């Protein structure tokens, strides 16, 4: 069995997975009937439809040809996700002064050919500008320093 359409295959798997997750998580919700819907009725039926769509995509990917996917590198995905995650972890504990440059540095790791000095410099500059705009000019209550 050859995967003729990798993007349909991937989409199908992803969608099947997500709909299964919702079906499983929503098992305990009361269903009710169509005219007296419980909280579980609507999500379950939507998830079932999504599951169908996902399976249909997988089946179709084996039957019909499509364009191959471009080459996948995991580095940008990891770098950007880790950068945002780092912000989440650091902002309350360490404040903006730590979280912002850290986020910028980690995000910049998505690209391999910059020198660390350049990265640090850019990170510091952008952090300063961002602090000036968001905390200074707009007055958002973002903790600036650690322990605030």
């Amino acid at each position, binding site marked *: 069995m050859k995967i003729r359409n990798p993007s349909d295959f991937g*989409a199908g798997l992803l*969608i099947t997975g997500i709909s299964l997750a919702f079906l499983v998580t929503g098992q305990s919700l009361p269903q009710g009937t169509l005219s007296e819907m419980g*909280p579980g009725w*609507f999500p379950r039926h939507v998830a079932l439809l999504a599951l169908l769509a996902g399976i249909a995509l997988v089946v179709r990917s084996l039957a019909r040809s499509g364009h191959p996917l471009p080459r996948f590198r995991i580095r940008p995905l990891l770098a950007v996700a880790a950068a945002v995650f780092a912000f989440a972890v650091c*902002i309350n504990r360490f404040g903006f002064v730590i979280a912002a440059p850290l*986020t*910028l*540095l980690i995000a910049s790791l998505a690209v391999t050919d910059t020198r660390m000095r350049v990265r640090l410099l850019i990170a510091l500059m*952008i952090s300063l500008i961002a602090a000036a705009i968001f905390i200074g000019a707009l007055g958002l209550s973002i903790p600036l320093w650690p322990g605030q």
Partner: protein
Amino acid sequence: MSAFDGLATGLATALAFHNLLFALAGCLCGTLIGVLPGVGPLATMAMLLPLTSYFPAESALIMLAGVYYGAQYGGSTTAILVNLPGESSSAITCIDGHQMARAGRAGVALTVAALASFFAGCVATLVIAGFADGLSQLAVSFKPADYFSLIFFGLIGATALSAGSMTTSVAATLIGILLGCVGTDLYTGIQRFTLGIRPLAAGIDFVCLAIGVFGLAEIIANLTRGAMDQTLLSRHVSGQWPTAEDWRRAWPAALRGTAIGSALGVLPGGGASLGSFAAYAVERRITRDPSRFGHGAVEGVAAPEAANNAAAQTSFIPMLTLGIPANAVMAVMIGALMIHGIVPGPDILVKRPDVAWGLIASMLVGNLMLLVINLPLIGLWVSLLRVPYRVMFPAIVLFCSIGAFSSGYSAFEVGLTALLAVVGFMLIWFGCSPASLALGFILGPMLEEQFRRAMILSRGDLSTFFTHPVSAVLLAASALVSASVLLPTLGRARREAFADETR
């Protein structure tokens, strides 16, 4: 007082020098707010609210209104430039708007968006002046069954939003609906899909979804495809002004979008987003060449932009005539009126024409002001795109994180945004459209809410959807649209199956 007299009075108020300054302040503030991801006009308006007690009532309203529709303009800017919708109603602009930017036509896209919004804003202002009562009657007489069928129609009509296949866009829409169901059930108070995580009890914030699935996922996709050593522009940047061809396509689209947005904006709760989705879907349906959509069709920018600005203006109608806010922003406006001891209602147009007509007239002034402010800025934005991507993208990632944090001061939401970015990237990578996801996310829960409400009110009688005329018509239209889409697909699938067999 006839509408013309009213407008004349209003213009006298709106063009007073101090009110012009207030309008300018509001518009500038609003545009900046709209450009920054996550920071919405609501928070800003709420912050400004106590200050407004020091100003006269009409000045307060003019400034706050300026913030609101200024933010719409700003939100469209980021939607086009970096695929980040500032408001839920700008999500649609991302589709073709960002593609135009990638093709070097960011300037044209921004200009078309600004002009379409201006046009829509002016027409909608006239609509308010002339038809406020009629439209508010419409809002009040819209039953849950009608609302359900309208949303259903919108969902069906708009499911073919992506350039990809029907199945993938339907699937993405369904996933969006599921994500929208996360949170507390309105009718029972039971938590759904929250896994016991308390911050999820309020549901997934649209800001997190927009930032994750649109903005961040797009960045990851760009980097994975290898855009690092370029700027955001892949080719020669064209001039700012639309070509004759663009004009020809765009202005009827803007007209249609204005009509749709004006009508839907008065509906309480979600009318504005519905408007831009519906306008896009209509353009896609009636065009001769649907393959252009999703790749930078100028109508795909003109129509939704016109719709969302028209809806932003007409959403003032229930506020002015009924004292009922169509959305949270209008609630703030009512608050501003109350602070000044003015009670909104149909007699506001008569009792305080300076305030009511002043506000309406200032919308005309405000829209013009925004055009004047934003058109020259387009050159600035486009030159920003020349900054090397390797410097831009970490900055955008940081701004996105800040935006996700500041909508609820919650680190959890930032983490959630990161997760949504991963999921969103995978969907994009495999050819699904984030706009379909957003559509499902916004409309799905509304669909459920209206259905269940219609059932409670009809005591479980399903025929309520067919006995109410508006609802019946909309459902019939949905059936027609589905048939017109499915039959050719089925026919093609059958032909292909036969073709394979005979090979």
